[in-house]
């Protein structure tokens, strides 16, 4: 892969033109740059729409002496937060267990994701030809979404 890219980069201009004419590649400039600009404009449009129609909510000023009834993290931490709450079932192992298992469990999951390329070394890339990895990914995504929703409504 890596060698291929360098070979493409240092091809002669005539060979590059041939590749473009055969449809194997596009010119970075102006073709690809134009696409990037279009996408940037779409993102800007989406942002301006969101900001104008749904301006960020600013609640009350912080008061260390008044604890609110429901303390919830932002939506992207809800899954992790719900995971910690679910870990309460390990209470039967002792009072130390829920917190340590909840935190260490997430640490282990993150570590596994970090090192995932070293566990999954088979070169096959097509999703349907590697069903275990694909199903694991779908399952992990669904659990994350489910935990987020559960955290939101609990």
């Amino acid at each position: 892969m890596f060698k291929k890219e360098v070979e493409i980069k240092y091809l002669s201009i005539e060979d590059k033109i041939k590749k473009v004419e055969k449809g194997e590649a596009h010119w970075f400039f102006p073709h690809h740059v134009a696409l990037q600009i279009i996408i940037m404009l779409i993102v800007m449009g989406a942002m301006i729409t969101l900001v104008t129609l749904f301006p960020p909510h600013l609640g009350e000023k912080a008061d260390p002496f008044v604890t609110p009834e429901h303390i919830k993290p932002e939506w992207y931490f809800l899954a992790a937060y719900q995971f910690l709450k679910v870990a309460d079932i390990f209470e039967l192992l002792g009072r130390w267990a829920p917190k340590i298992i909840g935190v260490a469990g997430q640490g282990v999951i993150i570590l596994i994701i970090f090192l995932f390329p070293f566990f999954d070394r088979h070169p096959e890339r097509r999703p349907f030809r590697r069903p275990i990895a694909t199903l694991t990914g779908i399952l992990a995504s669904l659990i994350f979404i489910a935990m987020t929703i559960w955290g939101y409504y609990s």
Partner: protein
Amino acid sequence: MNELRLGPILIRNRLLIALYNFVESRLGIKEIFDLEIFYKLAPSHLGIFSCFGGITFFLFILQIITGTLLLVYYVPTTAHAYDSVVHITNNIPFGWLIRGFHHWGANLMIITVFIHMGKIYFHGIYKNPRELNWITGMVLLMTTLSFSFTGYLLPWTQLSYWATVVGTEIPSAVPVIGDYIKFLLRGGTDISQVTLTRFFAVHIMVLPAAIVIFIGMHILMIRRQGISGPL
């Protein structure tokens, strides 16, 4: 020389040509322009899901710009942080827009990061030779989440205050060093001015420096290896 041809661009302006020749004779930029811009090939098999890394990067650039603008009026003290955010939103010209951009940019960035990660995962792009890029990507994900966590406290609202109380409590579950981590995060036993100051410092100085280094590595590795081929 009356004309200068740079890829598809033809320049006839004498001043521009003179300026170009000045730099070209000193740095040899024609080679870089040809290899990296004008005669650079881009893959033709890219779909919409291939764009999300780039969209994340674009959102990050917007975060830098809007964050810098917010920094001009934001006051990182427990007494004035909330009022300064209200002031930015209500009184500063286009302050609402800048703050809104920063808020929505942060949220969208997390969504686009996850979509990008899903694309890389399901199409097996992390595989040999791109393992290191996956690891820098994970570092970037962690950095992005740290940005969100530290930035959330800064407006000093009830929600952000109590979310930080709960959030900084979590590391105390780690055996032996847990309470030290909690103390280090809070700068004391409670959330106070010290906490706000260090979250502010981490949010505007430490994390940006870290994320710029890792984005640099992430992109340089892509440039070295190329975009992965079609499935």
